[in-house]
């Protein structure tokens, strides 16, 4: 090639090469180092693992085996917590929210993020009521709680979530951490025929979550546990 063109081509390649090097260096500087600490179960940890999976963000999925030994070093003696760049964040929802907001699975601003967190708060509240009912030992109280759940709490929250559906997912055509959280809480409940009929749009969202390639891949490869 004639010298001027050759020079131009060389300099284009040179600048592309250094641009991609800078991008890699910047990426390595910009990407935090995450260690997510929880038990070897899905439980309260699975939402954060779902968020990491969907966002395709690398992290150490640390599963505690000797809790007695590790408990004194956990920030509040509880799990999960997240170690990020030397800092430690406690609380399953707090951690899931942090990762979601940092990696494109939340809103566009503080108001949207707060609104999403508010919905997740209601979903978590429902989840607590569900387990309180499940684990209630007193027969009379259990019957009362089951009635309340089936007649009041379940229809209320499913109705609200169903009304919210704004596309393939709750907030439009892209998933957020709220869709992932709703999937983890409601996936089994939603298999019921009546629920499918009454809250069709919301059940559709849960199917979309299940079909997300990153989520599918995670569900397939994740360690198996009873809960």
């Amino acid at each position, binding site marked *: 090639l004639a010298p001027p063109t050759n020079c131009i081509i060389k300099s284009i390649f040179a600048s592309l090469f250094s641009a991609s090097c800078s991008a890699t260096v910047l990426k390595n500087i910009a990407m935090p180092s995450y260690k997510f600490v929880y038990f070897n179960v899905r439980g309260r940890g699975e939402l954060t693992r779902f968020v990491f999976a969907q966002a395709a963000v690398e992290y150490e999925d640390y599963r505690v085996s000797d809790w007695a030994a590790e408990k004194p070093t956990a*920030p*509040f003696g509880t799990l999960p917590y997240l170690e990020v760049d030397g800092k430690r964040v406690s609380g399953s929802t707090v951690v899931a929210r942090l990762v979601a907001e940092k990696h494109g699975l939340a809103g566009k601003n503080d108001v949207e993020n707060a609104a999403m967190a508010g919905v997740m708060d*209601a979903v978590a509240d429902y989840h607590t009521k569900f387990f309180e009912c499940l684990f209630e030992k007193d027969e009379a109280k259990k019957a009362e709680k089951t009635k309340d759940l089936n007649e009041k709490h379940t229809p209320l929250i499913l109705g609200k979530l169903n009304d919210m559906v704004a596309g393939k997912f709750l907030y439009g055509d892209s998933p957020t951490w709220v869709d992932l959280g709703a999937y983890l809480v409601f996936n089994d409940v939603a298999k019921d025929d009546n629920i499918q009929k009454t809250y069709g749009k919301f059940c559709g969202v849960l199917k979309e979550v299940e079909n997300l390639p990153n989520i599918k891949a995670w569900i397939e490869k994740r360690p198996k546990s009873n809960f």
Partner: protein
Amino acid sequence: MSYTLYYFNGRGSAEAIRLIFAYAGVEYKDVRYEQEEWPKQKPKMPFGKMPVLELADGKMIPGSMVIARYLGEKYGLAGADAVENAEICGIVDAMVDLAKEGGALFFEEDKDRKEKMLKKYLDTTIPSLFDKLNQLCSKDGYLWGSKLTWADLAFHRAFEYASAHHPDKEAILDKYPALKTLRSLVEQNENIAKWIKERPKTKF
């Protein structure tokens, strides 16, 4: 007014929010529903619960900790980035169990259950939390970093939950000197002192 806060006529899970508003000197409409009005108002709330914060544009945010965090971060009572804000929120998250148990104790009617719950509350729940919080606070006098954040105001609320069921309110913090100092610091703030003096006196 930009903000409306909806809750029952009590401190409960809304009071940390009111402390943040007071401290930051931000005006808001403090709507309080009595139990009889609640069934009529319930459908207006996003998920049938309170507290709810209504913004200027009508958007309604539910979740007491979500609201407190939103206001804390908006009014300079938080950190400098997402990770710091999450650290602070994690500290408040650790206080939730104490608040929940305190609330459950208040409403428990069965004497035997209440006695068992109270024992757990006094012997385990309060000490294990206050121990950890005291450690955090011992470094710089605040729960996080070296300045007051919304976590410190949330702590004041947690202290009130603990003292509501404790036989000797003033002695609870004797074992936790850093927290004792923090409690005074919060109460001596001019805005907080004014609010505590003037707020409606309620059962919970």
